[in-house]
């Protein structure tokens, strides 16, 4: 997994609430058996018309927002399905940080597993930051220091310590859990004694 440290970019602002995973990546693109290549279909229905041509009005089709690494969006971002294609599509497009006043649970945790930092801020702060998107000014995100720097201001944000460590070091969850193999084995031994029906054998 790609490490996340600091990030500087002109943010793109999508002032829509309840952006669901079907909007992020519609299901016709879920048939892939790969993780990459989904970026061109991110927000497909809003980005392209019926003929498959880019809709110029849509913000992600406009320069410089087509190169944004930071997405600011309305509340309840990522609701809907558990599919990881949503963060894969964001990542493939180049977005590695999403800022909203709230996220759907599964999407939130899927972000961390793919090197994307989701940041929860109050609505007011979101409005303030969105001004930078409107003015096409850069903001920067510093995960080490848990802060966003914009103009002469900064905002602190919260992030789970363990998740932060994994992002900073690009750690793979599975390797970390396998370090606890002994504990897993002991658990399984007890389970076999106490609930023999679980193993079906």
């Amino acid at each position: 997994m790609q490490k996340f440290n600091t990030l500087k970019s002109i943010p793109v602002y999508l002032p829509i609430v309840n952006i669901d995973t079907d909007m992020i990546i519609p299901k016709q693109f879920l048939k892939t058996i790969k993780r990459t290549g989904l970026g061109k279909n991110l927000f497909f229905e809003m980005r392209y018309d019926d003929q498959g041509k880019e809709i110029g009005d849509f913000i992600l089709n406009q320069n410089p927002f087509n190169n944004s690494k930071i997405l600011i969006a309305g509340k309840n971002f990522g609701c809907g399905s558990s599919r990881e294609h949503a963060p894969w599509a964001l990542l493939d497009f180049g977005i590695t940080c999403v800022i909203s006043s709230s996220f759907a649970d599964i999407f939130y945790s899927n972000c961390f597993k793919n090197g994307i930092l989701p940041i929860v801020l109050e609505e007011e702060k979101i409005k303030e930051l969105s001004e930078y998107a409107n003015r096409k000014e850069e903001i920067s995100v510093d995960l080490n220091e848990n802060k966003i720097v914009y103009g002469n201001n900064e905002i602190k944000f919260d992030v789970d310590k363990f998740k932060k460590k994994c992002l900073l070091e690009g750690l793979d969850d599975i390797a970390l859990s396998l370090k606890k193999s002994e504990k897993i084995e002991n658990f399984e031994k007890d389970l076999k004694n106490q609930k023999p029906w679980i193993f079906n054998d």
Partner: protein
Amino acid sequence: MPNTLYDKIWNDHLVDLQDDGTALLFVDRHLVHEVTSPQAFEGLRNSNRKVRHPNLTLAVADHNVPTTDRSKGISDKESKIQVETLEANCKEFGIKLFGMNDKRQGIVHVTGPEQGFTQPGTVIVCGDSHTATHGAFGSLAFGIGTSEVEHVLATQTLVQKKAKNFRVNVNGKLPLGVTSKDVILQIIGKIGTAGGTGCVIEYAGDLIRSLSVEQRMTICNMTIEGGARAGLIAPDEKIFKYLKDRPMSPKDKDWDKAMEYWKNLKTDEGAKFDKEIDLQAEEILPMITWGTSPQDVITIDEKVPNPQNEKDEDRKNSLERSLNYMGLKPNMAAKDIKIDKVFIGSCTNGRIEDLREAAKILKDKKIAAHVHAMVVPGSGLVKEQAEQEGLDKIFVNSGFEWREPGCSMCLAMNADKLKPQERCASTSNRNFEGRQGRGGRTHLVSPGMAAAAAISGNLDDVRKYQN
């Protein structure tokens, strides 16, 4: 200290707990389907890892499979590759799979319970948000992403943080024609799609206890639409009876031992909930969704909302956007909404009782001439059962198409989909933009309401057709 049912299952599955609350949870049952697993298996292969417990894993292809004649195979190239990739992966890693032509094949959340793979007190995961369905058995069941699928395959555990306890009590008796689908739509309307965020919901109260196993599944299934991680109901005799002698249920001595454990799976008197709401069943009416979020519910007697009455700017815009997408006028009566299609099926309402409920309304009636309607049973076994009961004939005689099992038009990954601006009364669980096909318009309803809409040609009150 008194514990909730969720607390108990959680505690019983802790492999490890870090100081910051990050837990490693043992997973008893892992369901796998073709859409969210290929990248997970690829990950295993790339890092030379094996599946830790193939026995605790069950796979089935459901999202992409055609619901018409299966003997011709899958015509869509990408769907075909995905289904074949699942077959190859299951073979390579030694996982049991119900292939497309297996009678036991079906929607993963219908198949699991049907086989007795789903059991009380277990932790069940699947790369699919509607895994919450299995909570009806008193299991902690939730959806995971593909990275987590890989994690579970490799370690049989999952990294989790504990959620909050939320209890929804429903007491009383439901009016005639009102079903558990209306109950859950009402609940979502009340708490909103983010109302359950960060929580596990336990459904309790005498109405919930009076529901059949399948009706409970409908409620737990849509818990995710209320934003919660999982929904569960304490298991009781109905659950035990349902599970007895299912192919993968515990047998003989193991059954007795399991029963001893299962009987104690309930929330202790005095256990603390972070959140609690109460509903009175008598007040629940047949519901429909009018908009593009499952919280956009009204009763069949009501009118579509008017954005002009909203003070909150965001809310107003979102109402306008939904109405516009749905092609509806403010203040329009629900019953004036004309429909083009009807879909009965999905992991919410594709089980035998759902089909019976719809068939009861459709018996000796014809659907409106302009309506195209289909039934897609939740599994091959549901289909077989329905055919034994003659339900297929009732559907076909009324003008419905009788299809092969799968997810079908619930999410339109196979050939079954709405055309732009087509309007559908659907028994599925999501009415998001484009969910049932690009530009398609979905109204979520119960199976009985779907049948009533098919007959009338517009959204209508199922109570009108009750005998």
